[in-house]
């Protein structure tokens, strides 16, 4: 990740697996072969490892272990929360609230619910990228059953005041689901302080393996949830299927390591991000997408006037690995719906880079990346027709 190759600045897409996690997972694969649901000795050892991991995940959230449901990742957790809560609560109401800048796992689940007869209020953030509790309050109705607002936006890193939204929801008897995939392990996260009933997270954003995540489900009172899968009683019937012991072990350890490192890592990564921003701001005609604060420490989303995003990514291919402000789901790059919702033009959204830093990012990485991005932007700006700085803005 660091060294002679490209500087990896795509932690928001996936963070490198901590070597200690890799080692623990290899150990689990070799030494814990049994099904954790089996009652024999080998099965009980696997179960112990899974329950240890559950406690580690819960510890990151300030939650009791019994509130953690293992899933395949944040997408499944978001789907289970949104679809599960809405379908289980349809007798009480058919109105949901979410924002236009949620992850697709929430957006597409809500669209699915619209096709099932639910009504969704889609909140638009301000130019700073934040969803305010006042906006939620304006659209709540007697038949609202669920509010889903992400903690940190995956493109801008901007943090929503989920605690204020949680207090509002609690007062109105509405369930709150929070997608915390980008904030878990990167900022202090306490589900009680947030007032959340459902919280989604994933292993691979915080130094754990891909393919495993969790949904926090409040215990008291426990929100009604309809499972997405059927076929067994695992995870309290909410997520049937054989638990992947090694994945759980890796995820759990990653949560514990992230929790332990948080007091030192958060300020270190934040300082690195601001160093990178200062290096890029010196180019001129660059702007941050979304508010600088409050935000998770490692995400910097920058708009470069006069630049086309796809060309910038290729320009940086050998030096920096990052993501551009285009959607990857289309053959022709569509501008990011998140940046569009923040008021950016299509061209400006495409001329934006998400640079995300993390645990293994060094001062040297930031210096190399900053120099490479600056050189790339200057070359592409020199290639562009006169007036591009003003017209591609």
């Amino acid at each position, binding site marked *: 990740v660091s060294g002679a190759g490209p500087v990896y600045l795509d932690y928001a897409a996936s963070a490198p697996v901590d070597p200690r996690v890799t080692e623990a997972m290899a150990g689990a694969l070799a030494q814990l072969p049994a099904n954790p649901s089996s009652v024999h000795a080998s099965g009980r050892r696997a179960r112990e490892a899974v329950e240890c991991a559950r406690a580690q995940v819960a510890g990151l959230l300030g939650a009791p272990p019994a509130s953690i449901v293992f899933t395949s990742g944040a997408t499944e957790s978001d789907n289970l929360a949104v679809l599960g809560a809405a379908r289980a609560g349809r007798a009480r109401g058919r109105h949901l609230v979410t924002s236009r800048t949620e992850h697709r796992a929430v957006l597409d689940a809500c669209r699915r619910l619209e096709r099932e007869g639910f009504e969704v209020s889609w909140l638009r953030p301000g130019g700073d990228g934040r969803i305010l509790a006042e906006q939620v309050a304006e659209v709540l109705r007697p038949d609202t059953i669920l509010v889903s607002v992400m903690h940190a936006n995956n493109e801008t890193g901007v943090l929503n005041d989920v605690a204020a939204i949680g207090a509002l929801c609690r007062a109105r008897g509405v369930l709150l689901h929070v997608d915390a995939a980008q904030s878990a392990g990167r900022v202090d996260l306490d589900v009680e302080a947030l007032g959340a009933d459902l919280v989604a997270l994933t292993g691979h954003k915080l130094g754990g393996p891909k393919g495993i995540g969790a949904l926090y489900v409040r215990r008291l009172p426990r929100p009604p949830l309809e499972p997405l899968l059927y076929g067994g009683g695992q995870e309290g019937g909410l997520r049937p299927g054989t638990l992947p012991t090694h994945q759980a072990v890796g995820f759990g350890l990653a949560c514990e390591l992230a929790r332990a490192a948080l007091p030192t890592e958060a300020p270190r990564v934040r300082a690195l991000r601001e160093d990178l921003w200062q290096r890029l701001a010196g180019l001129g005609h660059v702007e941050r997408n979304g508010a600088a604060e409050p935000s998770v420490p490692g995400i910097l989303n920058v708009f470069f006037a006069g630049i086309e995003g796809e*060309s910038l990514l*290729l320009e940086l291919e050998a030096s920096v690995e990052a*993501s551009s402000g*285009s*959607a990857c789901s289309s*053959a022709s790059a569509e501008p990011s719906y998140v940046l569009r919702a923040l008021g950016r033009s299509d*061209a400006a959204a495409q001329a934006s880079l998400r640079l995300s830093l993390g645990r293994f990012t060094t001062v040297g990485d930031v210096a190399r990346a900053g120099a490479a991005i600056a050189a790339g932007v200057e070359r592409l700006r020199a290639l562009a*027709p006169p007036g*591009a700085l003003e*017209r591609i803005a």
Partner: protein
Amino acid sequence: LSAVRAYPARVRDLFQAPPAAGPLPAGRGEHRVGEAGDAAAGAWIRFEARVADGRIATARFRAWGCPYVIAAAALVAGRLEGLTPAAAGEFDVQALAVELDLPPERLGRLLVVADAARGLAASPAATAG
């Protein structure tokens, strides 16, 4: 969010070291400009040429767009020299698309390159030198 797509080697080479890029150097002859496109079109190209004795003696391009756009503009600019301004926009867009292994959804951007090249013929000539 997107990552770097797999570009053909030809496109990469032209993108990384485009021939005939930048402003037109000073010289004798008519200075002509052909420009087309904008951000909404996904391509914005400006060709400049110095015309002497009825033929393009020097050509340069500047471009904003994806790597295919920059590669196409570089390729076209490199082939303008020796042509008459009227012939500048007559290159075969489909052949250029094949040469660059262009994804079908990007064909519209090559048409913008062609428009800019055709603009050279229509551009009012300004004599310099």
